[in-house]
């Protein structure tokens, strides 16, 4: 029985302490779970980023279910992606703050032609998210029907959630919430 982690991440990972981890390759991570005599196999098959040198606080945050964002201590602006220098005022006094995990859809598209592991997921919805704290993130949008793009609204509210992709990597995804 193979299930996508997106549908099962919360329920399964909450009891994953008894799981046996069997990492098979850098890009593929299998969680084998013996539960009530039934074997479940969870896969995170799509690409997993390599942690950068100055982005560790972000990835550490995702492990704890927090969306950490870089903010400039001089102009107080949040920027995304993480920089070595503030792109607004060019200060290097940067800090990490915990974001609210809330945002809105800036724009989106439905990917019908996809490559690699994502080809099996198509069609899926990609979106740019305006963060409540400012600036923007890319995501694969959840809680939407890719076959009904006319029902997805620019400006709709979204919240962040995290998928465990490997032993030390949790990937943020955004989900549209009902108004």
């Amino acid at each position: 029985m193979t299930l996508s982690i997106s549908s099962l991440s919360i329920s399964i990972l909450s009891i994953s302490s008894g799981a046996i981890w069997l990492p098979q390759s850098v890009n593929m991570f299998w969680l084998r779970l013996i539960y009530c005599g039934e074997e479940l196999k969870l896969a995170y098959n799509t690409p997993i980023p390599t942690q950068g040198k100055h982005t560790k606080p972000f990835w550490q945050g995702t492990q704890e279910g927090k969306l950490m964002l870089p903010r400039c201590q001089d102009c107080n602006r949040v920027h995304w992606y993480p920089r070595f220098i503030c792109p607004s005022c060019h200060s290097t006094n940067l800090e990490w703050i915990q974001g609210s995990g809330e945002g809105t859809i800036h724009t989106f598209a439905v990917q019908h032609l996809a490559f690699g592991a994502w080809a099996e997921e198509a069609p899926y919805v990609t979106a740019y998210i305006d963060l409540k704290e400012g600036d923007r993130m890319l995501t694969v949008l959840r809680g939407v029907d890719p076959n009904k793009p006319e029902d997805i609204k620019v400006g709709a509210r979204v919240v962040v959630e995290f998928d465990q992709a490997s032993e030390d990597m949790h990937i943020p995804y955004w989900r549209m919430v009902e108004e």
Partner: protein
Amino acid sequence: MPGQLYKAAAIVGAAEANEIGFLQEPATALQLHIEAIKNLSDQTGIPISKIEGVFSTGWSSELCEHLGIQPKYIDTTAVGGCSFEMHVHHAMAAIHSGIIDIALISHGENGFSARKIGGGGSGNYGRGAGIASPAHEMTMAYGLGGASSNYAHAMVRHMHRYGTTTEDFAHIAKVSRDWAMLNPRAAMYSKEKHPFGGPITVEQVEESRLIAWPLTILHCCMVADHGGAVFVVSPKVAAGLKTKPVWIAGAGESMGHANMLEMDDFTATSASVSAQAAYNMAGMGPDDMEMALIYDSFTITAAITAEMLGLAALGEGHTLWKDGHAAPGGKFPINTNGGGLSFNHSGMYGMPLLIEGYRQLSGTAEDGVNGDPGKQTSARTCVINGTGGTLSTTSTLVLIADD
């Protein structure tokens, strides 16, 4: 007697990254760049925001995005270790001609650290940080692939903001095909030439295969093979040639971002800035243009760019095609070769723009090989705009015919 560039420019500061050498704590090449730039700014008192030209071995657009600046001159000459001296030479010419006053030449290369953390070590020139860049790190998980997967987001935002429809943009594909059917060298010239060639309707564009909603395949340029070259020479050389000159009246360049994640307004590109520079140099404006050649990677690219070039009001770029002005016989021809949509697009379409611009303004657009009767326009002026990356970088030219 010294040449024109003699003392045209001076080096006024020089700085390095915070730590250099065999670093205990490995550094990325991007970090080495940024630290050196910050230290140079501190040393000279020149704010980073005042930098007008950026010269590096393939890093320039990434550096500008990281710094949040939009320069007027972008050079990425990357031919090995001597590139930086060439950057000085190119910066001298740009300063001498009055395009810029402040040029940044930047270097960052983690030849040692790369052994531990990978990335821009030796021999990486010309590629920027690539997969080691933080922009890549924060976007690579989310299933974007080819250009279409990115550009579709711009069309959705344009539709949201201006109430445009996929049908509005479909007219651009249809009109471009009409032009291609006058160009025997166009890939989509005819059914005989390509199974998908020959005439198309707006309905067919709408109903063709979905690539990235709302883009169907006929909203997207092809990926084919192309080779091309042009000579740019002095007036003295031009006077002695058998070919007709087409004069470069204006040129400008700009950029908004490197990665679409950093695109501020998804319905606007830096072409508004590069076009203004080109128009200023030419002493002309959009009303003086008699035709246009616009990089049409996607129909949305052509529509937005027409707006940025001042050829149509914001939100109304598509009307140039929809109302028939851009079509063969129309009052404002656009993409007379058939464009990237129906002529040819190999990945970087800037060269075909130059070639068709030359042909139209030198009166050679209808030679039977590169054009059938009806392709040559009467235009004497032409605005050309290339777009690079994901609606990232732009360059605009104003060409005028010889008297």
